[in-house]
């Protein structure tokens, strides 16, 4: 039997933990969230990483990320990490592009590139 101190247990492995009432609020997904979801399905289907790679990077982000970031924020962070790991693009390229995106304007709509 695994010892009960929880040593070796990862934060995401939460079955049986004490927790409060289930918050039942729901929301529909924003366009940027749907895009993140689509990017996951496309890049994993093309062999850049797997759903287990997605989960692993989210697990490694730690419990704070679970508490403070939204679901698709964690996903894009993990997708990006996996894509860098598999060589789809470099962190250098990503950094340069993120700067360029932010320079276009202060809202999600304005930050889109040409052709959007």
């Amino acid at each position, binding site marked *: 039997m695994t010892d009960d101190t929880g040593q070796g247990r990862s934060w995401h492995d939460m079955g049986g933990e004490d927790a409060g009432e289930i918050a039942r609020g729901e929301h*529909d997904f924003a366009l940027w969230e749907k895009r993140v*979801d689509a990017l996951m399905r496309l890049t994993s289907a093309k062999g850049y990483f797997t759903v287990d790679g997605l989960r692993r990077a989210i697990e490694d982000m730690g419990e704070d990320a679970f508490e403070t970031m939204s679901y698709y924020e964690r996903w894009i962070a993990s997708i990006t990490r996996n894509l860098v790991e598999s060589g789809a693009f470099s962190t250098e390229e990503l950094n340069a592009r993120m700067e360029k995106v932010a320079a276009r304007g*202060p809202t999600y709509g304005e930050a889109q590139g040409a052709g959007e």
Partner: protein
Amino acid sequence: MPHDHDHDDPFHHEGMSSSGHPYRPDNDQPLTYWQQMEIAVRELLVEKGITTAAEINAQIVLMDARSPAQGAAVVARAWDDPAFKARLLADGSAAMAELGIDPDGLKLVVVENTAGVHNVVVCTLCSCYPRNLLGLPPDWYKSRAYRSRTVKEPRAVLREFGLEVPEDVRVQVHDSTADMRYLVLPRRPEGTEGWDAEALAGIVTRDCMIGVAIPQLP
């Protein structure tokens, strides 16, 4: 002129959705770090020829088309057709494909509620869900509270959802830990004899197929 870049986009939304839930603020809100990353990653992937804008849009259209209505159609058919039900329990993905719903890699296991068993589905390790049948999972399914408690005190969880499972009924929890995804086949309520498929599907909600509710007559 701010924020109109997505104007011709089929996914540009205003106000509340047809399901009555608010859309998360999007185009007009200050750009977040993670949105900035999403735009950058998407552009890099397109520029490198790994994907295209059209492919991304097609994926969004595909996922938007997946909804609990698809699952309800499967359940309604199973209620009306014992041979289909047998095939559904033996191979959920093949049976949904029979109805023209593409499993697209989903490995569906259907678990049947009976007089003696009530099934409920959870994923304690992340938030595995039969997305290719039911669409994206509700927020509560991904919450710490639901993921933590359902395997230990399912009856208390179900009570919060308004469902009291009798003591002589066994609660059967399914933790989706690996490659299968689970759909609960609810019991057909008495008083629905002679109903057509559409009427039957109309009482099968998403929550019934997760197992936190049972079909109610209108």
